[in-house]
């Protein structure tokens, strides 16, 4: 099962196993990793599952398609960066084993 590392804004890292096919958001929620709220449950409707993708993984994960629902939600999320993504929109696959994401200071 792919391992994903979530790093809280205060630097605390949580490495957990997430089944293929789940979203990066669900991996955090199912393991009670703090820092991802996911108010809408993964419907791409709240932007409270915002993460920064580690530089080493940005090519593999990619950025949201311009004009997409995710891009428009992100344009108003708190403290966005060029490497911002909504974690409910990233599906875990075998080749994401080792993925590292960082959490913003807050989701609201």
């Amino acid at each position, binding site marked *: 099962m792919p391992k994903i590392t979530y790093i809280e804004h205060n630097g605390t890292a949580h490495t957990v196993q997430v089944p293929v096919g789940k979203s990066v958001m669900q991996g955090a*929620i*199912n*393991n*009670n990793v*703090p820092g991802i*709220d996911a*108010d*809408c*449950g993964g*419907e*791409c*409707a*709240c*932007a409270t599952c915002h993460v920064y993708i580690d530089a080493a993984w940005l090519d593999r994960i990619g950025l949201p398609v311009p004009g997409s*629902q995710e891009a*428009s*939600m992100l*344009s*108003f*999320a708190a403290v966005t960066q060029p490497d911002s993504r909504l974690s409910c929109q990233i599906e875990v696959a075998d080749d994401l084993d080792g993925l590292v994401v960082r959490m913003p200071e807050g989701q*609201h």
Partner: protein
Amino acid sequence: MNQDSRHIVIAGAGHAGGSAAAMLRQMGWQGAITLIGDEPIPPYQRPPLSKAWLQGEATAESLALRPATFYPEATIALRLATRVTGIDRTAKTVALSNGESLSYDVLILALGARARRLPLPGADLDGVLELRSAADADRLKAALQPGARLAVIGGGYIGLEAAASARALGAEAIIIERESRVLARVACPILSDFFHNFHRGQGVAIEVDAQVAALDGANGRVTGVRLGDGRSIPCDAALVGVGAIANDELAAEAGLACGNGIVVDLAARTSDPAIFAIGDCTSRPLPLYERTGRLESVPNALEQAKQAAASICGKPQPAPEVPWFWSDQYDLRLQIAGMPFDTTEIAVRGDVDAGKFALFHLTEDGTVQAVEAVNASTEFMGGRRIIQRRKRLTRARIADMSVSMQELAA
């Protein structure tokens, strides 16, 4: 007192109660947590019950708030199929339906709301359904065979979503609404019209200004909805979606301040400092609007769960959020931010006929109080920020699509 020896009891294992338990652990609570719910399954999300779940696009696993393994792993004692039947504030105990009594140091009431029932002849016939729990959704789903006729009593969000899901499953649907328009209590007339027309276009029949007089039946099963004007609308199942009532009786009996919900402050505290209340069962301050009110939404349940967990763990309170809500019908996503108190005009941004627009509700001085967005997430997100910042805008500027939402919200 050492934190480790204190016991938190959470009454009600729904969206708010389940989230509070998880957040307490996230915030480092070391003491015991007991989460008590009267349903037979661990906390789950209700929104899909009228949407993806009903249409067969969600599984029990995807409905669950957390996997079942989470509770033992987080040492949260989950007691299912168990009702809290009384609160003794002096002894600090709750009585359970199995006759046990459980002592608490801190009690969180997360009792939710229940579907309002119709005090009408025939309301207890088989096939007269409500939609609040997963068990309700199973019954409704079983009734929605292709070609079956569903009568939806009440044109609110749940009724409209159920009608949309019925159509997706090949069933017939008719919505029967007492007011002159659907969504009468929760949306503005432009939005009501838009949804009315959209549902009609999808083959849903709609009766407005229609009083239901009784449910007709044969052999104990519903066969039709009888209206005040004498007409009977034939159906194979009737869904009653006429609002929800806060489960505040336990709190009221225990002498906690209540009034359309358990009265709480912005730290989710009730009138007893050892008791918190969160979610649909509360009447809460709406600081942005200098009012109080009862909200029935997942974001509210989560916000209050966070307030209670932060209070109990001695963490800073989260900043108050703009209330928000969503609803999915067909391929329409409605997102609403804020509440349209004291508003005098509506600015339309986008194209209503094209099904992609947002309605901004303004007070006399141009303060944006609420935004209703249909397939317009940018407007919703920008609107939320504008409301949070108490920004004032003119109708003309909002309607001007050459001004981006980013500029409007700046």
